[in-house]
């Protein structure tokens, strides 16, 4: 047996023993394990599963063990992923800390910062939100105005962030702030702020899907210790952009559809249910063609994701992959939901109450939520601009 075979056998045995039964079932949205100080666990197994995985660092399999991570190699991490999929294990922790902030800290933060923040993320103790966008700075992110003034032993932060996902439930916020107003990109710094600090206030905003996952975040005379600056002063833009690549990779995974109510596999079955069967075929030719087109797009996208992963392993980089995947994945996801509406007819148009089952209602809400996929993390237009400029070398107007 090779080392990897041994690792697989041990991992399988450990998961078998430690993954609670209920953590091997599809996850209802309200059981999403966001962690944090205010975490509630409607299903107590969620907490058990999180703690067990975190004790091995397997919430962040590839992060170094010295910071609480699993210290696994890429191959080992892939095996862990495969073994988890084998038993349909839920993700033990969902977190902006894991997906976005952590990787940026590993690259740019000081030793003390890594020691302090990464462990908290791995264990799901602190929940982070992202303070980038402002009312006047969305696509033009570098136009941000929230100011951090140097007051000797601390920074004094004033300004407003907006569309801050989950800010009202988060413990800390990673913020882009202006530390030099005389220049644009070179006057931005990356600052970590405890949301418990006086002067931080998050007000929820209602979305078209009815939920209120994002907020306006007001920062008024907020005192932030100097040690909370990540990287060098006025060098925040580099960190910001790297972090956005991680964010986009995460969002683009939506193109794959995940599991749950709207998963790809169900599409043709639903089409047959709604339009009948003609032999093995979906009886309505237009719907059949639309479903087929969609499935083929989906497969081509999946292959491209795989090719990028394989190339990354082989040490080659696919240029601007993150922007391409973000663009394609989110547009694909939006198309999938529109097609589901066509397939399901009026049953996909319920809001609440009688006449619609839970799966149908969740598809309606997810359809509405999907409209934000091509806006959050940089709009589709911004991704196309980035590809045109950075990959294709096409000059600005």
């Amino acid at each position, binding site marked *: 047996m090779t080392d990897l075979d041994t690792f697989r056998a041990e991992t399988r045995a450990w998961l078998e023993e430690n993954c609670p039964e209920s953590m091997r079932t599809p996850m209802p949205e309200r059981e999403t394990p966001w962690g944090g100080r205010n975490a509630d666990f409607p299903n107590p197994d969620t907490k058990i599963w999180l703690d067990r995985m975190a004790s091995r660092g397997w919430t962040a399999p590839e992060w170094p063990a010295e910071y609480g991570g699993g210290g696994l190699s890429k191959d080992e991490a892939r095996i862990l992923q495969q073994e988890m999929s084998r038993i349909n294990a839920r993700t033990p922790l969902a977190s902006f800390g894991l997906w976005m902030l952590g990787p940026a800290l590993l690259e740019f933060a000081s030793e003390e910062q890594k020691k302090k923040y990464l462990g908290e993320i791995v264990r799901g103790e602190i929940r982070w939100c992202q303070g980038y*966008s402002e009312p*006047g*700075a*969305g*696509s*033009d992110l570098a*136009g941000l105005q929230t100011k951090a003034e140097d007051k000797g032993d601390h920074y004094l932060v004033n300004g407003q962030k*907006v*569309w801050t996902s989950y800010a009202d439930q988060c413990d800390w916020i990673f913020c882009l702030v202006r530390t030099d107003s005389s220049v644009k990109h070179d006057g931005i710094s990356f600052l970590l702020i405890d949301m418990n600090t006086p002067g931080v206030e998050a007000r929820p*905003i*209602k*979305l*078209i899907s*009815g939920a209120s996952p994002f907020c306006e975040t007001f920062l008024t005379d907020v005192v932030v210790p100097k040690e909370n600056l990540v990287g060098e002063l006025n060098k925040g833009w580099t960190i910001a952009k790297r972090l956005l690549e991680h964010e986009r990779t995460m969002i683009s995974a939506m193109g794959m559809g995940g599991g749950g109510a709207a998963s790809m596999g169900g599409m043709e079955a639903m089409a047959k249910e*709604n*339009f009948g069967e003609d032999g093995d075929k979906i009886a*309505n030719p*237009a*719907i059949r063609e639309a479903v087929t087109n969609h499935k083929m797009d989906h497969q081509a996208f999946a292959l491209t994701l795989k090719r990028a992963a394989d190339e990354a392993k082989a040490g080659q980089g696919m240029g601007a992959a993150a922007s391409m995947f973000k663009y394609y994945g989110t547009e694909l996801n*939006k198309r999938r939901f*529109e097609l589901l*509406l*066509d397939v*399901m*007819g*009026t*049953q*996909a*148009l*319920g*809001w*609440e*109450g*009688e*006449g*619609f089952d839970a799966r149908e209602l969740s598809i*309606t809400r997810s359809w*509405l939520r999907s*409209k*934000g996929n*091509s*806006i*959050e993390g940089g*709009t*589709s*237009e911004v991704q*196309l*601009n980035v590809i045109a400029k950075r990959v294709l070398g096409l000059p600005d*107007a």
Partner: protein
Amino acid sequence: MALVLTEEQTMLRDMAKQFFTEQVPVTNLRKLRDEESADGYDKAVWQQIVELGFAGILIPEEQGGTGFGPIGLGIVMQEAGRTLAATPLYSTAILGAGLILAAGSDGQKAELLPQIAGGELLTALALEETAHHNPKQVAMTAAQDGDQIILSGQKNFVIDGHIADKLIVVARTSGAAGDANGLSMFLVDAKAKGVTVTRTHMVDSRNAAMVSFDKVSIPAHDALGPLGAAMAELESVLDLGRACIAAEMLGGIEAVFDTTLAYLKERKQFGVIIGTFQALKHRAAEMFCEVELCQSVVLDALSALDERRNDVPRAVSLAKARLGDAARLISNEGVQMHGGIGMTDAVDMGLYLKRARVQSQLLGDTNFHRSRYAELGGY
């Protein structure tokens, strides 16, 4: 006929535009939604609509109406669509009045039409049984029992079902689901024994219901039109409904387009208004072309109905299919071009988006009408 409005129709449009903009703005729908209105429509607004003569717009003057015909109806619906006005116009002034006019006996017309025009009677069409419009697939049965008719079955997506006084029920007196023959229509009191109406809450915050009929017994003379042969009249009125929904959709996409265009001229990023970016400019110009085509097909469908042309079904399917596609495109772009704020409930883009999908399903979505258009064309 030329595809332009007459002077009289232009006056009607201006009046409707002013009424809906001033008296029934989008905040009216928000209020109904947020206050969880039990009726789901504003009775005071409906009273004003009645006074303006819109409730009886299809009904001849002798029977208390204003007799403006299909074009007049379409004009009013377009303006109502612009502000997302939630009224019983569709269920009562269009389908109810339309079906009674087309299939009713002289007695039924004399009794019911003045009530509709006078705002005393609300109707709802109980037609759909599955998640997709398909009149031929009606399976609900109507059995003859002496001089009574016994209705049994289940209907869904009954627009205004829970506020209607009378239901117009499509059921089978013979044949099987899939047959065009054998369908009949009946006028059923919404409070009749055995009728259960359950309001459903849909994404557009407008009225719809499920209605079940448990051996509902009605006198045979409450049939609307001859038994077993409802299809022709039904289809002709459904075409009127489809054209009017297309007109309402047109008003909706015009509102989204106008609002979005204004936003492109106002929102600044990178130190310039976002309308500077060619990526958005061209898409706005494309939407403009789309809206222009939509205006043509809607007006032609309404004119065909007005003039009783023999290509009504094709003209209507052309309009309904095109508006379905255009509404999807433009409502999506409305959200996307607004960026983050487009995803919030505070701006109206989401309300139009939600309404557009329900309108699209009403009386046949794009797939249904594209396929019908081809069938009618013999290919």
